[in-house]
């Protein structure tokens, strides 16, 4: 009996995790509590020694001194400022007019603006709200199909998840123990393919169902000639400057991703001042919401580190790894299983929970199967993006619902997102079929160097990098 419990503490802990999380108490605290509860049992049964728990202080120190996590508040803050500053409005207005004369022109405009906003910041809310407020009424007035209009706005708002600099990629880089720069470089290919896929779909629609995506009549295009050019420049130049400030400095090696985030945030404040929307109220709101999101995310991370420390100690990590590497079909079997699993788990868990709880369990198995972890992370990222567009969490749909006029029915919004979810899944399939899409942009192709792999395996169970910096733990 006791032996059976002792050797099955891992699975029991996993069961306990699911049970306690389902109760609905904040995940950060139930995670830590499950971890500590099982640590007492494990110590009692002699599976781990009490001194093993002394590692907890290292883990905590590793979290608060992690330079990468520092970019979470910076990018969030930048997004929170940009959301309210009026840049998106200018962009949409000018690009919409520019493409207006083509069929589906407004849809293309929404997709491009979504991509530009995505390259500046990483928050879905900012893009969806701006595009919903400005483009949706115009699209409705000129006879766009309602489902298509809401779908394209929601989908284009979510592409910011995959386009660097995205918060999701920062978190995934940390969880996978990879550099953010590589993660961003790898994301370039899939981001482009995604935008192209969306445009192809709009083009197909404009051929088979021209009535759904009409061109704007000439009287709707108020700006012509120089006025239009000036308006476009006014929208695009500041965006390009911000994109350079953030992405350019990272890719050129001038700044770390964290510093680039900070510069972007300062740049965003400057931009808001330029648009004359900067006020103390706006700044404080942005600061406060950033602080709450940062605290929430980091507390989940702390909770999950407590959990996983004990989970590794009782051999749970090995148990999961054996199960996953034992799947039939090797790499492809593993990827298919994990992608389907993550697609469905995203109905129940939000991104940060998936990133900190689920992915650390999958990553060691992926590494063991020789799967490039950057490729794997980007697959997960593209996959999770769909969760913004389907119930129950569908944040993008939720924001859209909040600002859409009453004539846009919830039913339309939900049904309208389906083709875009399918496009997203096509992207995931393409990425699995053509890993070059990711690896082409990485500086050195990842070769299967046994020594490097060994090193990777050695570092994986510790869930990212922990800088000890000469600290000694207190004797417990």
């Amino acid at each position: 009996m006791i032996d059976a419990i002792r050797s099955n503490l891992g699975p029991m802990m996993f069961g306990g995790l699911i049970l306690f999380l389902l109760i609905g108490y904040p995940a950060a605290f139930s995670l830590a509590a499950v971890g500590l509860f099982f640590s007492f049992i494990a110590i009692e049964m002699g599976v781990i020694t009490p001194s093993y728990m002394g590692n907890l202080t290292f883990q905590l120190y590793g979290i608060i001194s992690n330079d990468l996590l520092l970019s979470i508040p910076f990018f969030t803050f930048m997004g929170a400022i940009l959301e309210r500053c009026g840049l998106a409005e200018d962009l949409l207005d000018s690009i919409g007019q520019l493409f207006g004369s083509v069929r589906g022109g407004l849809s293309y405009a929404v997709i491009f603006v979504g991509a530009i906003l995505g390259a500046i910041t990483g928050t879905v809310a900012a893009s969806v709200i701006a595009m919903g407020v400005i483009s949706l009424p115009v699209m409705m007035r000129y006879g766009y199909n309602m489902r298509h209009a809401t779908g394209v706005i929601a989908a284009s708002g979510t592409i910011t998840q995959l386009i660097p600099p995205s918060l999701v990629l920062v978190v995934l880089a940390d969880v996978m123990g990879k550099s953010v720069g590589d993660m961003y470089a790898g994301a370039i290919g899939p981001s482009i393919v995604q935008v192209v896929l969306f445009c192809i779909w709009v083009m197909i629609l404009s051929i088979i169902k021209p009535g759904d995506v009409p061109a704007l009549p000439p009287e709707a295009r108020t700006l012509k000639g120089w006025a239009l050019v000036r308006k476009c420049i006014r929208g695009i130049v500041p965006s390009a400057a911000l994109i350079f400030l953030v992405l350019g400095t990272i890719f050129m090696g001038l700044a770390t991703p964290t510093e680039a985030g900070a510069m972007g945030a300062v740049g965003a404040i400057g931009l808001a001042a330029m648009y004359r929307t900067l006020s103390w109220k706006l700044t404080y709101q942005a600061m406060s919401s950033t602080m709450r999101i940062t605290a929430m995310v980091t507390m989940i991370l702390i909770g999950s580190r407590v959990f996983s420390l004990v989970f590794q100690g009782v051999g749970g990590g090995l148990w999961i790894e054996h199960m996953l590497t034992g799947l039939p079909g090797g790499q492809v079997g593993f990827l298919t299983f994990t992608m389907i699993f993550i697609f469905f788990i995203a109905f129940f868990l939000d991104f940060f929970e998936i990133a900190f709880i689920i992915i650390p369990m999958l990553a060691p198995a992926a590494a063991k199967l020789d799967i490039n972890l950057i490729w794997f992370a980007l697959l997960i990222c593209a996959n999770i993006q769909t969760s913004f567009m389907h119930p129950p969490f569908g944040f993008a749909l939720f924001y859209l619902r909040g600002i859409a006029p009453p004539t846009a029915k919830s039913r339309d919004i939900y049904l309208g997102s389906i083709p875009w979810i399918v496009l997203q899944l096509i992207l995931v399939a393409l990425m699995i079929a053509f890993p070059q899409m990711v690896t082409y942009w990485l500086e050195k192709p990842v070769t299967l160097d046994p020594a490097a792999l060994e090193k990777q395996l050695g570092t994986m169970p510790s869930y990212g990098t922990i800088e000890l910096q000469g600290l000694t733990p207190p004797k417990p």
Partner: protein
Amino acid sequence: MFKLWLALATVGCMAATVAIAWFFCRELMPLSRAIDKVGGVLGVVASWLVLLACVVSAGNATIRYLFSYSSNAWLELQWYMFAGIVLLGSAYTLKVNEHVRVDLFYGMVSDRARHWIDLLGGAVFLLPMCIVMVWFTWPWFVQSWTLNEASNNAGGLIRWPVILLLPVGFVLILLQGISEMIKRAAALRGFHQHEYAYEKPLQ
């Protein structure tokens, strides 16, 4: 045998906390308000740290690029502030109910059931977790303080302030947890209208 007693005592303590919150919630409301006030003030401090950290980090990068000068103290200050944002802001985040939950079940039940979940969860998950965390981190702070431990990097900062933030942060969460339990019990007994409904955090 001793271990069994310890386990029973722990469960007894949890039950006693819930019982105290339940029976004395009206008398304890001033305490809860005082805790909320402390959490609120520190929440404002943590919010300002966001802006300060941004400015410091952007300044570090700019100065390094322009003057090829870099100071470890300023680099370390960045993440000291990050620790401040998280550990001082967590209690306030708990107060405004923005710690993310798995709301598969929680989203379906009534307000009363949610109050019960928060009241019992506070006693079973939050309080023990915070106590254990303080128990782990406090001796570490004491050690760092007595050794006057400093950063290994040249010109780096002394370590104890940031290590002190850990136990302090967990004590603050512990206090806020007690305040939340009092408010939930009061709401269940009809003395208090709970104002922060849970919403999924925005991204």
